[in-house]
């Protein structure tokens, strides 16, 4: 699959904006918990971000009803779900399938290979993306599993279902 075949540039369906905003509201408490937890357990990753701790990243999982806005500033950490039509002006955007992005965070997939295959698309400040990639790559263990474990058995079950449904292209 190529990303370009999948990314839709069409105007939203009627009512879609409401659904997206609802989805954002539902996941936001979870995201806030997740990002605080990751930041406290893996504080060393901030050093590799250097000046891009204050960069606004837009992480866009193409099949989800919302994108994620990340500002990895240890003093004022932001990870929030945003409807695409209300996304902030991002310094850098990273776009791909949700499970691919998750596998990249956990270094189960190689970012350069995903870029070569065109499954991963980046735009904006390339240095910011490279720093974020290298910072996450230096994290031992699985951020996805840590996150799933925060939600006990249901969390782990959802993660393993997602992984089963993910077929690398």
């Amino acid at each position, binding site marked *: 699959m190529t990303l*370009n*075949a999948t990314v839709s540039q069409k105007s939203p369906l009627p009512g879609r904006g409401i659904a997206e905003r609802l989805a954002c509201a539902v996941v936001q408490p979870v995201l806030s918990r997740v990002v605080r937890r990751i930041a406290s357990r893996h504080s060393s990753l901030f050093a590799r971000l250097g000046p891009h701790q204050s960069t606004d990243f837009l992480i866009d999982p193409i099949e989800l009803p919302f994108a994620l806005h990340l500002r990895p500033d240890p003093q004022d950490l932001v990870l929030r779900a945003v409807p695409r039509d209300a996304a902030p002006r991002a310094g850098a955007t990273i776009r791909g399938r949700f499970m691919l992005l998750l596998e*990249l965070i956990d270094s189960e997939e190689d970012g350069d290979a995903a870029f*070569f295959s065109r499954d991963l698309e*980046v*735009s904006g400040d390339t240095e910011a993306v490279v720093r974020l990639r290298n910072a996450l*790559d230096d994290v031992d263990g699985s951020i996805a599993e840590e996150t799933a474990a925060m939600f006990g058995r249901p969390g782990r079950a959802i993660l393993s279902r997602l992984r089963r449904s993910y077929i690398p292209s």
Partner: protein
Amino acid sequence: MSLAELICPAGTPAALRTAVDAGADAVYCGFQDATNARNFPGLNFTPAELAEAVAYAHARGTKVLLALNTYPPAGKVDLWRQAADTGARLGVDAFIVADMGVADYIARTHPGTRLHLSVQAAASSPEAIRYYCAHFGVKRVVLPRILTIPEIRQIRKEIPCEIETFIFGNHGLMVEGRCSLTNYLTGQSTNMDGVCSPASDVEYKRHEDGSMSSQLAGFTIDCFGADEKAGYPTICKGRYTAPHRPEGYYAFEEPISLNLSKLLPELIDAGVHAFKIEGRQRSKSYVRGVVTAFRKAVDDIRAGRPADMADLVALTEGQKQTQGAFETKKWR
């Protein structure tokens, strides 16, 4: 020293541990500055991280090689000297050097520490290699990727040091150690600043038709169609138009990676001591996949079995691979 040592890349401490655990005989890495040719943002080691990495590797019988393989500009040599002093203090097993001044400093200040001659020195003749051995005590040369196996076999007979060859990874070879393409466009030098196509000068643009262009310092390097595989934004792999080629063509070389997995027995037979995997800028996932595959292949060959090699094409640039000049000088 074992035959056919596997020399593996590490851009972060986690990648180093991954390489060690996957069976690397030695791991090479660099500091977070211009002293090495992968001076990329967010990559590489602080001295404290290197100290921990050396301890981790040595506890598992793996060596650590420190890349000091760039060329100090006039008046800035102290950075390289300090890096060498720090590396020696932390107990690295060898320095990979390109510059004669750096080699000379280490040979005098840290006698007894192994020196490996980087591919960046572009030493491809017995005469050049012997010079480095005689004057700086170089123990191993990393050969440029421009030689055939018969040529390597012949060089081996004429030099007093070990040979290391690349077996997998990026294939931007030009005249190694002397490429000024990035310098020409960005003002930053691959050879002195340690970075080719600095990320701060790279921009990707997606177009309405699904194509994507890559730009360096505002110059378009390539434009990939919606279903085309992409490559690194390096000038040597760019596609350019010219009056006689208005459709655009790879003026230097196409996005492709080296993969010599099928030539390993011949390389061992030709007297190659060590095999290098390129890719300090790559992820742990790459390191794990490539090191595991080559560890198994080398072990198979040592045991007299045919090498059962995993398919690594998904990890290659442009998702294409070549045996380059190792197979034939006409590879392009």
